[in-house]
């Protein structure tokens, strides 16, 4: 059985040595977007959409850290979104509304869950790993649906966004946007650092040739587990933010389809480049949001009824679009962007 992700070797990123155009532009765009939102006249909507992009960007990047750099295909990563979300929701319902309590608890819970399930899952390889992570994800999902005091399947509405040191700053959509951007940037910087560090090098080496790594004295299991825990915590953080963004938590945060979508965002963006995962998340969510409208717009020559029908069945276009991306654009969107530079 071949390893699940025989990825094209990702060049080791070198932080600081070369100012990379794409991530700089990406973050510049995120920094400039609120301005655009103000002008659009629908700032809450634009901010809400972009905040979601950033939050899923964090989650996708967390996954990329183990998928793109460690070849560990976790099919249960949405569980961490849920863990983070429920940590916020459950604590808030018991009166702990401060993010300074909620986020550490969420991170701890995610870390503990990742540690236990990771230790078991990492005994397996390839598709078996995919399926066992799915199994753990499903267990958490079903557990959440049976949490009657916390809304069960319907989920629970948060009375308000989390406080920060007792203050309700995050209630403001702009402040919340900046807070998410800060988290995204922090997660990105941390991931970049990890990938380039000694630890990251072992992780990348293990992806390329685990036997060789053992033969020079590394125990891959420890590094993979540590990476899994870090990745889980990052996804847990994304869960905290998602709960705050939607002001709502429910088991639907962690269906297996969600886990699939996360894998998707990573592959769509381009494996093993971190900012590729953010771009993948953006592409996925924006397509989901705008494809119906785009279809409606480009089919202006058809009758209104057909156009509405087309817009409603946007997934019939989205599906083939994905197939085409896989068939003709190797390496996802990042592959597409990289190509011109190589001539």
């Amino acid at each position, binding site marked *: 059985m071949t390893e699940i992700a025989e990825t094209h070797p990702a060049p*080791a990123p*070198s932080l600081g040595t070369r100012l990379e155009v794409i991530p700089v532009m990406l973050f510049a765009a995120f920094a400039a977007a609120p301005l655009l939102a103000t002008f659009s006249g629908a700032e809450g909507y634009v901010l809400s959409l972009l905040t979601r992009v950033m939050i899923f960007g964090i989650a996708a990047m967390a996954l990329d850290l183990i998928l793109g750099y460690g070849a560990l295909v976790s099919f249960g990563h949405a569980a961490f979104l849920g863990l983070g979300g429920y940590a916020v929701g459950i604590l808030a319902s018991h009166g702990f509304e401060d993010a300074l309590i909620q986020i550490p608890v969420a991170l701890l819970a995610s870390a503990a869950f990742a540690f236990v399930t990771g230790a078991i899952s990492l005994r397996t390889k390839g598709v078996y790993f995919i399926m066992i992570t799915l199994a753990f994800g499903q267990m958490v999902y079903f557990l959440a649906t049976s949490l009657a005091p916390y809304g069960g399947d319907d989920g629970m509405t948060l009375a308000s966004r989390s406080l920060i040191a007792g203050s309700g700053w995050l209630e403001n959509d702009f402040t919340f946007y900046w807070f998410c951007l800060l988290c995204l940037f922090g997660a990105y910087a941390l991931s970049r650092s990890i990938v380039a560090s000694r630890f990251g090098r072992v992780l990348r080496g293990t992806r390329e040739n685990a036997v060789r790594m053992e033969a020079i004295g590394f125990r891959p299991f420890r590094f993979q587990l540590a990476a899994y825990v870090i990745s889980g915590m990052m996804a847990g953080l994304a869960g905290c933010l998602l709960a705050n963004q939607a002001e709502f938590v429910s088991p639907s945060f962690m269906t297996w389809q969600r886990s699939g979508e996360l894998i998707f965002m990573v592959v769509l963006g381009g494996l093993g480049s971190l900012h590729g995962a953010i771009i993948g998340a953006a592409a996925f969510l924006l397509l989901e949001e705008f494809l119906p409208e785009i279809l409606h717009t480009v089919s202006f020559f058809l009758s209104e009824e057909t156009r509405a029908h087309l817009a409603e069945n946007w997934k019939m276009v989205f599906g083939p679009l994905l197939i085409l991306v896989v068939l003709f654009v190797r390496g996802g969107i990042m592959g597409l962007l990289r190509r011109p530079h190589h001539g």
Partner: protein
Amino acid sequence: MAEPLLELRNLRKNYGALVVTDDVSLSVLPGELHAIIGPNGAGKTTLIHQISGMLPSNSGQILFSGEDITDLSMPQRVDRGLARSFQITSILPGFSALENVALAVQARSGSSFRFFGNAAQEKDLNGPAMECLGEVGLAARAHIPAGLLSHGEKRQLELAIGLATAPKLLLLDEPLAGTGHDESQRVVETLRRLKSRLTIMLIEHDMEAVFSLADRVSVLVYGRVIATDTPERIRANPDVRAAYLGEEEMV
């Protein structure tokens, strides 16, 4: 006779009825280059796998520096100073030659649980790694991705990686396999330089190289050691001639 660095006692590996190594006992003395020869399918690579910890043994004991390491994992054996190369080149193709070696230096140099700092820039890692590359004559190719090196260079890189783990004993599985004449000359020269500093166990088909390098030679036939002796005496041993060298012309 000095205390052996590596001692195998009645080592055995079988898959069901198929016995691959059978009751292998031999010892490697500190400072010697001990070659293992034998016809194809004699179990040489399996033996290396057993010693390095890649394959568990069905019975028998492995002692290293007097310690029983039979049940230790591969990384644990590496920690104790047992390094190996692979018959089929096993490197990290996406990493540069330097990084391949630097990783091995990193493995020996303590904590790899460091999440900050750019490992590619660490002098503590790159310095010794460059030394090892220099030793095998690859210094000029340090920044080439290992996957793009020529076959011979990859063999040299394997050696450098093995060296970088600072082993007491280096297990080399056919380091000359598939190399051209010039390349193999370079590897042989490298081995000759190394043998003064290191204990080496060498599996090799190239008899010329074996007999010019080895201090002692063990002959493995159908999983059994039929003789261990100096190269000259092995050359003269009638059992070896009969069982292994047979009709083949001796060098």
